[in-house]
């Protein structure tokens, strides 16, 4: 009864259909991770500021992003970016901008927790040494917050990698799309979806095992 045939998935077919999408998924994950962590750290510092004109907009941004489904955020940006810049932008570029800005909200919550977990005395020590706010943050608080939060940041990145499949909504050509197109062309959708699921599982499972190892090592250092 199982009429599965994976023979059509030759290396040639995989490299012509899937590799391009895989490359885009990885690129999207990396750019959104680096951009998201950078922007997220700024947002976290803004939220922890005692100045309301910094804290309130950051809180509003983070809470808004976190309460809208990612698919809707993708659609919103795909609709709004061309209106703002006055010309259409490809689905891929739009996805990169969307994911960076969207993930920044999630990374900022992680960084905020990381910064808040640093003892107050560390900041006081920085000021006592004559450092200003920027130096205290950059040289004392953020490196520690970053190291404490590294496993959580990486777990969020695995979720980000899984979420990149949602660019399906605007038709960007990612890993899942590559498998889907191959499945349609060879009329073997069952097989391609199975292979896609196995590949995603293999990547995410091994990465989360690595994160778990890392977490144990960090725990020993403390």
């Amino acid at each position: 009864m199982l009429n599965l045939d994976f023979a059509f998935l030759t290396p040639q077919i995989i490299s012509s259909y899937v590799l391009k999408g895989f490359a885009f998924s990885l690129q999207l994950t990396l750019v959104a991770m680096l951009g998201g962590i950078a922007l997220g750290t700024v947002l976290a510092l803004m939220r922890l500021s005692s100045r309301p004109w910094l804290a309130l907009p950051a809180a509003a941004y983070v809470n808004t992003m976190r309460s809208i489904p990612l698919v809707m955020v993708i659609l919103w940006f795909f609709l709004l970016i061309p209106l703002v810049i006055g010309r259409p932008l490809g689905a891929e570029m739009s996805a990169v901008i969307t994911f960076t800005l969207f993930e920044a909200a999630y990374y900022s919550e992680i960084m905020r927790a990381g910064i808040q977990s640093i003892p107050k005395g560390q900041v006081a020590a920085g000021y006592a040494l004559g450092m200003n706010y920027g130096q205290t943050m950059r040289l004392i608080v953020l490196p520690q917050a970053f190291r404490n939060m590294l496993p959580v940041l990486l777990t969020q990145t695995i979720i980000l990698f899984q979420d990149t499949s949602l660019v399906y909504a605007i038709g960007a050509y990612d890993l899942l799309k590559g498998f889907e197109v191959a499945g349609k062309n060879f009329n073997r959708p069952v097989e391609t979806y199975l292979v896609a699921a196995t590949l995603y599982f293999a990547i995410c499972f091994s990465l989360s095992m690595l994160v778990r190892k890392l977490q144990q090592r960090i725990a020993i250092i403390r």
Partner: protein
Amino acid sequence: MSTWDWQVFCKDTIDGEIVSRCFGGAGDVTYLDWLFSAWGWTLSVSLLALIVALVFGSLMGILRTTPNRGLVLAGNAWTELFRNIPLLVQIFLWYHVVPALIPPLRGVPSFLLVVLGLGLFTSARISEQVKAGIQSLPRGQRMAGLAMGFTLPQTYRHVLLPMAFRIVIPPLTSEAMNIVKNSSVAFAVSISELTLFALQAQEETARGIEIYLSVTGLYFITAFALNRAFHFIEARVRVPGMIGGGH
């Protein structure tokens, strides 16, 4: 493009004529009717998936804390399987692959397949929280239960779970809100819920901003209502004497 045009919701979906009372009737369907029906689909998918997720998530979370290594392994395997495949891929598996491999499932409506897909995806996350909740209890509680002559299931039923479930209500609240957000993925298998409405109505009317704003607003209201409902439950079942408990 610069002005609002909220009248778009009063338009008939077929001929584009503006219907005077905005709600169609007698065979006419306006975009407002469609919006509410889409909201209904979002609500049904989310609530049914939440039930599936709570049932399987609790069961797997409990299995992972039992002394039986086989059961722990089964619970761990379940969690890793459903946590490490993207939701959209899981939805496609339920929609395209499962009915092809298991012929009796061919007649099952896609709505139910999506409920299963979303529910089991979320069950992996709930199992993590239930497990953490049970493990956060002092070990003496389990021992006390067993020492009283309770069987293992009785210890869970009368000693461990009543406390553990109260502890995990806050993380379950955010999972419930996540389910509403994640139900948007159902658009990919043509469930006529809010996101599919947004995509199609935007295309037909070219009033994207008004359509998206209404859809985003409804997602917001739904998640917020669930949040309040869980807070209500949390307040009702509070244990006196605990931190954050009643008097």
